[in-house]
């Protein structure tokens, strides 16, 4: 008998024996191998007498039987044996465990990339398309920081002048409704970041498309309609057809009459549009970079996370006064309405112009009309009851606030069940309120989870299904009463509701992954319920594992290179995590393309907190970097208006810049020294600020047991994950803590 025939016979007996007890594990396979070997040895004399062809036949049959049993279970087998996540781990090791290396590996315009190049003298980011170069800054310890410009699509990192690391191309841009007038709506960023699309609301036709670099070679980030024209906010300036005001990078803007409020980092800058140009009026320090910005006739409302601030619109009379007396403000940090009201009364007596409040949940969308300020959120009082209801208790809700006092006057919980529900506890309507707008007295709400458009009048919510092409609405505007303009970002479409019918305009390719991210499970929860997509909003999970601090649902960026997943590193791959989560919440309500969801999640990247352009004004050595012309002087002016109270723990958890002044380059270098000296860099290794290892509670010096994933710290300053459970893993002395905290602000 040949060796091949012998192998067939033995393999067949082995796999056949295993197939008889098809327990999907290597344990069963090994025991079958041992048993078959011993069995064959014991009965050797007998089977050696059988004809060779018979043994080969039996062997072939056994192999076929074994493979037929094993093949369908291959995934489960791999998972059971801890092989899940080997591929992502290998990818991450290949990209990050070498020098030079860069993180994030995907280009993220406007954000900071960290490059580890121990022996390099210069690091730069090259925009090959536009032949521009952005120099990086050495932070010491072989680490460089380089901030990608906004208007960039492909880039290469050059080490000492030689192109060395090619960054993955930037993710598809996220379209937004820039502004809308009675007859047109302006969409920014689809399908390319530089594209501005003007849609005729009456006819539903695309009236004009402005292609690459529409406004003097600058990237449009926001726009407002002001009187007769559209005013554009770019990554450098505010401009209309004739005038320009270099007020810094525009993050958001809103107009009331001739006054325009522009969010530039942590500062709200008011400017008046006059015949002779833009006249700066007043700068107000907000203490955070607003994501939402809107206005009524009296005030501008800015929000990020749970924080909402209203700033009175400066008039000619109050302007001088506020500038000389400096900004003052009222803190109403509680959910208590009465407290908020009384504070605002005293505020008006003192001629205070700024009101602040902290809501129970993060602001996902806002709308204002007169004294009514509406906020879409995912928590009403979850933090108080979280111990009883568990971690993932999401309350999709719309809050109504008094715009004058910022006190919550009413909370409408929107998630509910319809007669279609077919599962205990299933909720299938009013899910994921993601956009709000007033139509007269009616508050219109767009639900991205259940694909509905609802009208809220006197506390009663009436909803109507959106067409499938607009099933995931992410933005809504009402240019004229009765007309609705809906942007469905995952579908890449703009819809206009007029004369009782929808008209849809394709702006960009649909993203199955983004759609799956918003698709609800039977429980009514979607991924986007807790991990709010965009706007730096999130959901606060309850205190668990004996900790008293509520935690925030983590940021879902940079997942591709930071396996394993979950705090306990329980999941080796995103596929498993998604599958298990969906099962936990009753399964998907409709079929979901999990592979597309994984791909979409892996495409999401986030860099560090780019403040390098402010370094340039403070540190001569970084002089090659871009500077924010005109901003630094005014930042000095408004520094007096800072809230100088010590940031509360809650502020820290909000993860936004609690101080007006970004860390200087010296602060960052000094902080990095302290970071390394304290041993932080032992686990949070450069450039990803994680070694991706799992550690036990004992290794971390914790009383608690269990396994802990080492998280990346990149993006920390703007996310809610300051410390995993509200306490630092390492104990460092107070002085080092301050220095390290300053450094972390730059991540």
């Amino acid at each position, binding site marked *: 008998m040949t*060796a091949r025939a*012998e*192998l067939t016979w*033995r*393999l067949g007996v*082995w796999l056949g024996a295993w197939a008889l007890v098809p327990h999907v594990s*290597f*344990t069963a*396979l*090994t*025991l079958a*191998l*041992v048993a078959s*070997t*011993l069995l*064959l*040895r014991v009965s050797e004399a007998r089977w050696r007498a059988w004809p060779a062809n018979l043994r080969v036949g039996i062997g072939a049959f056994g192999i076929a039987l074994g493979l037929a049993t094993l093949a369908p279970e291959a995934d489960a087998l791999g998972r*059971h*044996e*801890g*092989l899940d996540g*080997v591929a992502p781990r290998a990818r991450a090791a290949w990209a990050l465990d070498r020098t030079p290396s860069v993180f994030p590996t995907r280009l993220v315009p406007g954000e900071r990339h960290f490059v580890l190049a121990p022996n390099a003298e210069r690091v730069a980011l090259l925009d090959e398309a536009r032949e521009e170069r952005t120099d990086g800054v050495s932070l010491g310890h072989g680490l460089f920081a380089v901030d990608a410009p906004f208007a960039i699509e492909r880039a290469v990192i050059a080490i000492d002048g030689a192109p060395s690391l090619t960054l993955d191309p930037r993710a598809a841009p996220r379209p937004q409704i820039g502004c809308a007038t009675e007859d047109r709506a302006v969409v920014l960023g689809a399908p390319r970041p530089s594209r501005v699309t003007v849609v005729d609301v009456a006819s539903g036709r695309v009236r004009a498309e402005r292609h690459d670099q529409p406004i003097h070679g600058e990237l449009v980030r926001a726009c407002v309609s002001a009187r007769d024209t559209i005013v554009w906010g770019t990554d450098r300036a505010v401009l209309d057809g004739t005038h320009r005001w270099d007020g810094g990078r525009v993050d958001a803007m809103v107009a009331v009459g001739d006054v325009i409020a522009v969010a530039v980092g942590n500062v709200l800058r008011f400017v008046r549009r006059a015949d002779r140009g833009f006249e700066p009026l007043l700068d107000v320090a907000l203490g955070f970079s607003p994501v939402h910005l809107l206005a009524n006739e009296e005030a501008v409302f800015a929000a990020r996370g749970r924080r909402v601030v209203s700033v009175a619109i400066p008039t000619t009379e109050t302007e001088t006064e506020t500038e000389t007396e400096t900004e003052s403000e009222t803190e109403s940090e509680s959910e208590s309405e009465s407290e908020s009201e009384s504070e605002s009364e005293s505020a008006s007596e003192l001629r205070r112009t700024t009101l602040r409040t902290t809501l129970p949940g993060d602001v996902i969308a806002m709308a204002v009309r007169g004294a009514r300020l509406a906020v879409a959120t995912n928590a009403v009082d979850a933090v108080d009851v979280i111990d009883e209801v568990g971690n993932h208790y999401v309350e999709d809700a719309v809050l109504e606030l008094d715009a004058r006092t910022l006190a919550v006057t009413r909370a409408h919980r929107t998630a509910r069940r319809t007669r279609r529900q077919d599962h205990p506890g299933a909720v299938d309507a009013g899910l994921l309120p993601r956009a709000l707008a007033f139509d007269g007295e009616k508050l219109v709400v767009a639900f991205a989870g259940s694909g509905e458009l609802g009208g809220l009048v006197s506390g009663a919510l009436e909803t109507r299904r959106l067409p499938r092409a607009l099933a995931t609405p992410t933005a809504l505007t009402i240019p004229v009463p009765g007309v609705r303009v809906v942007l469905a970002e995952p579908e890449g479409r703009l819809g206009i509701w007029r004369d009782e019918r929808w008209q849809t305009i394709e702006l960009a390719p649909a993203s199955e992954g983004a759609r799956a991210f918003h698709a609800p499970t039977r429980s009514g929860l979607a991924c986007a319920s807790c991990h709010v997509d965009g706007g730096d909003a999130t959901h606060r999970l309850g205190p668990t594992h004996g900790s008293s601090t509520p935690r925030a649902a983590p940021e879902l960026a940079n997942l591709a290179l930071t396996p394993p997943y979950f705090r306990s590193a329980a999941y080796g791959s995103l596929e498993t995590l998604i599958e298990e989560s969906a099962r936990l919440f009753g399964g998907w309500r409709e079929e979901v393309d999990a592979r597309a969801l994984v791909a979409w999640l892996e495409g999401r990247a986030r860099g560090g907190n780019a403040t390098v352009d402010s370094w340039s004004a403070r540190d001569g050595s970084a002089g090659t970097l871009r500077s924010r012309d005109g901003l630094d002087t005014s930042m000095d002016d408004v520094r007096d208006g800072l809230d100088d109270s010590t940031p509360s723990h809650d502020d820290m958890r909000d993860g936004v810049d609690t101080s007006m002044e970004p860390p200087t380059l010296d602060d960052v270098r000094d902080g990095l020294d302290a970071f390394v000296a304290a041993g932080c860099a032992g686990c949070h290794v450069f450039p990803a600020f994680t070694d991706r290892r799992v550690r036990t509670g004992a290794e971390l010096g914790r009383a608690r047991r269990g396994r802990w994933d080492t998280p990346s710290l990149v993006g920390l300053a703007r996310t809610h994950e300051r410390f995993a459970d509200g306490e630092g893993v390492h104990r460092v002395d107070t002085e080092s803590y301050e220095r390290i905290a300053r450094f972390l602000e730059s991540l």
Partner: protein
Amino acid sequence: MTSALGWLALTLFLSVPLARRVRRVVAALAVGFALTHGTLALACAGPHLLDHAPSRHGALASVLAVTLLVARRDGPVARWLLLAAMLVLIGLHVIA
């Protein structure tokens, strides 16, 4: 460290036709390393050791090693089959 060395030594012992004295030394080292490693793992993880896939792979590799010893006088095909399975498990033990 003990893990990789122990299993490597055991594999060498089982597969390479070395001189008898060398094989004895290698076998002694292998047994020492493997026992130390196994004891440490058991001390750290306790009875939950086999819930951990890599530990399970290590334990299974041990079982195969013993079977290989028992089956030494079988034909070369049986030996190679057992050896291949053991190497796969050791590989999994290291990477998973």
